[in-house]
């Protein structure tokens, strides 16, 4: 049952393509945000796409050959940095992890939902990272001095690592927040990524004061704002299952002895 999720997704996408197809002329519609006029405009490009091109490859080809003013944020090109999240054909995805040719005749690209746009496809993620910092995403130890002058590692049993390992694969790309209906309707909602990380750190056996974190998430803008639409888990490119982490977090908040 357990395998590398990312690899299987890519392989299945590529297998769907007819082997004879080498290149295809695709229409790429991009909803670009202009910071000067503060308006969106739809621009269409025609791009020759090869069978192994990702959406990010297509965007970079547009910048290189057709329109160098198009702004896109990216870094690793391999689904690790989480920079290139955007709405692709109506769904939040990573541009570097989606095969372009398997998306059909046309690709429709927009900036990531639920984030204020900065320019073209780039969105402002400051608020997300501010919320992330608010839940103290690090090990909290009772003896702070000992933590920074530790003489030995904090050891864990394998089963203790299992309690949070799948949630630690989160790359903070913001795809789950773009998919979340509660984040769309309540800007103060911490969001699936932040709540999942609150559980990831609270469940860690090396952490000694989960109470601080649980007090922050114990509100309608926190763990009780989630109404289980499951869209975060359905769209997560790493299958880190934020909805499951939120279910665990809610149980922890309700049962934690304070």
């Amino acid at each position, binding site marked *: *049952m*357990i*395998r*590398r*999720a*990312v690899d*299987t997704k890519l392989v299945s996408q590529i297998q769907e393509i007819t082997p004879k197809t080498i290149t295809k002329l695709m229409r790429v519609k991009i909803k670009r945000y202009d910071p000067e006029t503060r308006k969106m405009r739809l621009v269409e490009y025609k791009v020759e796409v090869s069978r192994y091109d990702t959406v990010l490859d297509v965007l970079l080809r547009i910048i290189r050959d057709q329109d160098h003013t198009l702004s896109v944020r990216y870094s690793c090109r391999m689904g690790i940095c989480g920079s290139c999240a955007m*709405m692709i054909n*109506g*769904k*939040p995805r990573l541009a570097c992890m989606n095969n372009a040719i398997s998306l059909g005749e046309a690709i429709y690209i927009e900036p990531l*939902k*639920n984030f204020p746009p900065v320019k073209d496809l780039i969105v402002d993620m400051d608020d997300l990272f501010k919320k992330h910092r608010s839940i103290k995403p690090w090990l909290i130890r009772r003896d702070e001095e000992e933590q920074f002058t530790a003489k030995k590692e904090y050891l864990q049993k*394998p*089963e203790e690592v*299992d*309690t949070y*390992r*799948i949630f630690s*694969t989160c790359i903070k790309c913001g795809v789950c927040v*773009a*998919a979340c*209906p509660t*984040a*769309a*309707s*309540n800007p103060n909602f911490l969001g699936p990524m932040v709540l999942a990380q609150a559980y990831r750190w609270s469940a860690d056996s090396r952490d000694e004061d989960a109470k601080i974190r649980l007090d922050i998430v114990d509100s309608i803008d926190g763990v009780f704002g*989630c*109404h*289980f*639409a*499951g*869209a975060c*888990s*359905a*769209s*997560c490119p*790493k*299958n*880190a*299952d934020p*909805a*499951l982490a939120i*279910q*665990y977090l*809610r*149980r922890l908040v*309700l049962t934690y002895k304070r």
Partner: protein
Amino acid sequence: MAESTLVIVVRRVAGWFTPIINLERIAYILHRITGFYLAIYLPLHIISTHNSLNPIAWEKELILYSSLPIKIGEIFLVFSIFFHGLNGLRLLLVEYFNIFLPKKLPSSLYLERTLSIHNPQKTFLYLVIILSILLTILGTLYLFNILVLR
């Protein structure tokens, strides 16, 4: 220029509806639509039954209730009652009583598929949808006097 309150409200409510990626999201949307429908229906029902004190107004209402749009509205009302109730029960059991929460998580870094939106939680959602549709059919038959309970 600052957005008006109405534009903000409309934009936020529109956020419930897109993007539709999974069945749980459809259940989320339906839960809200049926909730609003019931919230609008209940005060209207109280006002309407109050009109029964006036025979002329009541007669007019009875004619209105026999029209096709109202009949369709009644069928959706039956669906709203069953779906909203059963889905609310599902959310309570899954989210607060954690009946399907795995006791142990897999010893793997990556999951092939997410656990929260697949079995057994998914099966429970299918059950809620099937039960809601079946009860709506039965309720509609009863409402239109096709099915008579003795």
